[in-house]
């Protein structure tokens, strides 16, 4: 019986690390970084953080979004800017007028829709679109080129996702769910929502997605993206082909 309880605990709460989710890349990826250094603009990270209490009430945590955005930008500067192939530029939203902010919001919104389509139709078993998987040609379209008017660059880095954190009460419910399950043989979980993070390098002139990576269900648990070390590991994991392409 005790073994059964521990088994539930381990399965429910000690899932760490990721089964490697393959990247998706455009046919131009392999040669993309061979023609000299590329300037990569990093647009504001669009990761939504939600705190989930015992009753499943979600609360969006803005300060966590801002905190995580800063950590990602630092980690990206450290890891990618040191690459011989990439020169990082961080886009400062405060320097943009409202027209350009709106344009940027629209591109971020479109990127979220495109990344959700990529995840749904090139990663999720049963939902795969074979031609999109074979000829990965997702794009935001050449209208993206307008970004070069205010931050000239070769490539744009988009990062977006959603992640939820359980409060102490909810984690406790989860533990008790496991214990109850062990005692009664019936599994009761306090409700779960898959987290996800995606990153993409997008050609700023054509809008083509050159490279894409996804972390999330069913392969991966996202760690605490408010933590510097976790963000650093996440950036390492997300961008390892780009970093290793040196």
């Amino acid at each position, binding site marked *: 019986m005790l073994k059964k309880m521990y088994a539930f605990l381990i399965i429910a709460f000690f899932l760490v690390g990721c089964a490697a989710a393959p990247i998706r890349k455009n046919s131009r990826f392999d040669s993309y970084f061979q023609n000299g250094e590329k300037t990569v603009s990093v647009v504001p990270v669009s990761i939504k953080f939600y705190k989930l209490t015992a009753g499943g009430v979600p609360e969006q945590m803005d300060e966590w979004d801002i905190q995580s955005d800063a950590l990602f930008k630092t980690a990206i500067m450290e890891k990618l800017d040191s690459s011989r192939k990439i020169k990082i530029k961080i886009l400062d939203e405060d320097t943009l007028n409202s027209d350009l902010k709106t344009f940027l919001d629209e591109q971020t919104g*479109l990127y979220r*829709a495109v990344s*959700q*389509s*990529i995840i749904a139709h090139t990663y999720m*078993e*049963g939902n795969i679109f074979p031609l999109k998987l074979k000829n990965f040609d997702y794009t935001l*379209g050449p209208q993206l080129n307008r970004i070069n008017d205010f931050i000239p660059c070769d490539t744009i880095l988009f990062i977006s996702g959603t992640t939820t954190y359980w409060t102490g009460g909810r984690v406790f419910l989860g533990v008790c769910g496991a214990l109850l399950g062990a005692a009664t043989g019936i599994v009761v979980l306090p409700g779960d929502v*898959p987290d996800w993070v995606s990153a993409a390098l997008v050609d700023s002139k054509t809008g083509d997605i050159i490279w894409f990576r996804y972390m999330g269900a069913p392969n991966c648990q996202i760690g605490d993206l408010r933590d510097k070390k976790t963000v650093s590991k996440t950036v390492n994991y997300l961008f390892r082909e780009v970093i290793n392409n040196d």
Partner: protein
Amino acid sequence: MKIKLLFILSLALLVCGCAPWQIVQNSRQWRYLGFEATLPAGWMKLNSSPDILFLSKDGELLQSIRIFRYEINKKNALPITKKIVTDNMLPQEISELIVNEMSLNQNKQKLKILENIPIDISGENGFKLEYVFNTPDNLKIKSVLYGFKKDKFIYLIQYQATEQFYFDKDVVVFDDFIKSFKVLR
């Protein structure tokens, strides 16, 4: 939220052994619900309710073609205005009903009607509506909707895509699809 729904759908359908999507291998005739059309090769067809034909090439959030129908005189046909389509309605009146319904839909913000004109669809008097709106996430969507009445039903044929890039990319495919659309008599 959409990823979660797709994730659950994938798992559920895997369990029951049904693939939700099927590739259209070659352009082929598709006959159902009293009409036929040529499906565009390389697009994916969703295996869902028999009352709906749903196609997409890049993903339903980016672009889609669909045919669906509503029963005439059925109570509470339209969810927001609760208006019933009656059999003496002209295509213009049906199109205005649809515009009213959309204008009260909070998920369609900044709705703008670009065109609302009469059109012949395979010999049937119908309407063509073209419009744009923003989703609550500020994504701009453009849509073309054809509609006509036949027997007990209103048939609606829609092409919808993100206004940026995807709409223009595949509108020609939709135009060909509409040209191939025939009501079987």
